[in-house]
């Protein structure tokens, strides 16, 4: 079902219909020249591919954005409090709101970082919240909170720059919020937690799927772009090495690599992309690290189930944004329900990400369902199940200029510095196959820009 868009969508379409189709080609050609790419490893090979883009934006009304803004801010405050708590007093466990066993069984919980103070008590500096709009009830639903290294923001940013150049009439005519200040917001966020020194964006390197984004954000925010080899820790202080043999103290790092790879002295000893002893600088309070170490426990797909309880527990408020109806195989009652309804549920492996480990029960053969059932019974902590959400489609323009509905989600970004700012834009991802529900870019999905309106019309 196609979402009934804002009346401005008609305004958009009437402008689009007057536009020479060659200008769409011109836009795509600019994208290629700018190498707005998304890298993939497929069958063991590195593929640098352009990120498929569709010209038709998602339009979010001002009222709707206000609602999402409040909901995401509330969610991020609560989850940040949860992380502060879980790595210190663990009151939420002691009060029985979340089962201790459930938290301690997660590989993403890092007890070795208990009581490590973090700069300004902020742990979720950048988050990417995945939402879909349910066609049943016309309500936004949170699917995931990405609280470690959420990627993707550079794509709507880059495309907005290009679209403004190729199609200025949209931005002259329609009341679309500006988004190009994201790099300045990022800089402010980094400056806020900076403990004294330069800001650095740390990339795993060329073969990371989001290398383009790392490079883009460094350039636009004025942070220094670095790989692990460019950084060194001495006396618990992190330094950037220059080609002239000098060193500059680093005060904040926006790291774009996972905890596991961050410090070969603290995590995986064979990591070649991390910085030896960076965790010592972090523990000593000499470094603002974005996002903090150990955040994985909060975006564990199982912990997601408890976010509404966190909001009630820490903030005394009712959640503004709803979760998808979720069942934890960890709980006996839920497990029974999952086993009995495997055919109709979506099953997710909590250890997977990027659209991997997501199985639609309806698409499994009898023997595959039996295997899944046995896996759930063997390792119940590993699985959650959700009701299938019939989320809205958004129209995409094919090569012939026809408008075809595709499933689409929305990743919204928030930055937590002096305050939580929800960026008035977002990455709308659509499934490449009109029949598919999987929108992830690593699964071949494409993207659209997200236009948040300044006012309702």
């Amino acid at each position, binding site marked *: 079902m196609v979402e009934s868009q804002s009346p401005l969508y008609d305004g958009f379409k009437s402008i689009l219909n007057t536009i020479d189709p060659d200008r769409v080609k011109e836009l795509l050609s600019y994208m290629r020249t700018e190498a707005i790419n998304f890298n993939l490893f497929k069958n063991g090979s590195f593929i640098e591919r352009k990120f498929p883009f569709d010209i038709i934006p998602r339009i979010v009304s001002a009222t709707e954005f206000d609602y999402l803004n409040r909901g995401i801010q509330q969610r991020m405050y609560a989850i940040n409090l949860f992380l502060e708590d879980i790595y210190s007093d663990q009151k939420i466990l002691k009060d029985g709101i979340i089962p201790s066993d459930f938290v301690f069984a997660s590989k993403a919980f890092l007890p070795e970082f208990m009581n490590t103070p973090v700069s300004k008590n902020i742990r979720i500096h950048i988050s990417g919240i995945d939402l879909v709009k349910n066609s049943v009830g016309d309500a936004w639903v949170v699917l995931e909170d990405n609280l470690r290294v959420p990627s993707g923001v550079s794509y709507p940013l880059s495309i907005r720059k290009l679209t403004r150049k190729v199609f200025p009439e949209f931005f002259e005519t329609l009341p679309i919020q500006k988004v190009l200040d994201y790099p300045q917001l990022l800089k402010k966020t980094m400056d806020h937690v900076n403990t004294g020194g330069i800001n650095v964006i740390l990339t795993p390197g060329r073969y990371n799927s989001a290398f383009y984004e790392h490079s883009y954000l460094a350039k636009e925010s004025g942070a220094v772009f*670095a790989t692990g080899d460019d950084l060194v820790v001495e006396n618990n202080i992190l330094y950037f090495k220059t080609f002239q043999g000098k060193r500059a103290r680093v005060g904040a790092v926006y790291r774009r690599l996972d905890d596991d790879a961050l410090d070969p002295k603290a995590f995986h000893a064979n990591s070649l992309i991390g910085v030896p002893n960076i965790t010592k600088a972090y523990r000593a309070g000499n470094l603002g690290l974005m996002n903090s170490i150990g955040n994985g426990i909060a975006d564990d797909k199982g912990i997601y189930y408890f976010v509404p309880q966190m909001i009630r527990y820490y903030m005394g408020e009712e959640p503004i944004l709803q979760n998808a109806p979720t069942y934890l195989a960890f709980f006996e009652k839920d497990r029974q329900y999952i086993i009995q309804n495997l055919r109709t549920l979506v099953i997710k492996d909590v250890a997977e990400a990027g659209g991997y480990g997501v199985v639609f029960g309806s698409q499994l053969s009898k023997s595959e369902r039996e295997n899944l059932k046995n896996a759930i019974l063997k390792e119940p902590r590993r699985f959650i199940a959700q009701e299938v959400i019939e989320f809205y489609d958004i129209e995409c323009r094919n090569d012939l200029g026809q408008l075809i509905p595709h499933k689409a989600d929305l990743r919204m970004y928030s930055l937590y510095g002096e305050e939580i700012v929800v960026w008035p834009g977002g990455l709308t991802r659509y499934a490449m196959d009109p029949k598919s529900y999987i929108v992830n870019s690593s699964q071949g999905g494409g993207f659209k820009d997200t236009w948040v309106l300044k006012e309702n019309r």
Partner: protein
Amino acid sequence: MILISPQTAEHLFWIGRYIQRAESMTRLVIEAFDKIIDNDPEESHRFYAKLGVTLNYQNNHEFLRHAVFDLEYVSLLTIVNNARENAVLARASLPNRMFSRINGLYLRYQIAKDEPKTSIFWLESTLEELDAIWGNLELNIAHMHEKDLIQLGRIIEKMDLNIRLFDSLEATALDVIRLNDLLVKLGQYSKVQLHSSNPLKTLHTINSVYKTMVAVQE
């Protein structure tokens, strides 16, 4: 303080080398194409022999196809790919337009390699792209040290080709003053001196300049 990492500095340096190499080799291939028309095929054989490559062709179009796309290591396609790879890696330190120009040139090569025939006019037109890349670098005032590192690569590549292809120590010596000026700008105060009349020794000296500079500063 200049905040460029050793890795990025090396990528910038190699952008300069590969773009200069692409320009020099393009001009030489166009010249050789012209000579083959006048039934002087040996000229281009001798030219590639200096690069350690044997080039077999039946006519000037076949020569063009091999020189532009097919030769290992020294085809223009490989040179442009290498320039672009270094530009991707150093993108955060490059002027935006310079990156786009280099990537644009790379894309033109990617499209042209799948065409059934290689056109000399097409190849000539790539020189305009190369001119634009250099012009863009000259006009940029915001990335002074990045610019110096690219220029360093450019000069060293020119000196290298002058010796390697034309045995011209004189032409190389003319660039030494500019080379030393750049080294001073980059914080290196020991000057390069080319005393040797031995081309191989001179080649070794100029190709060691970058590594020596980094080693001294470390």
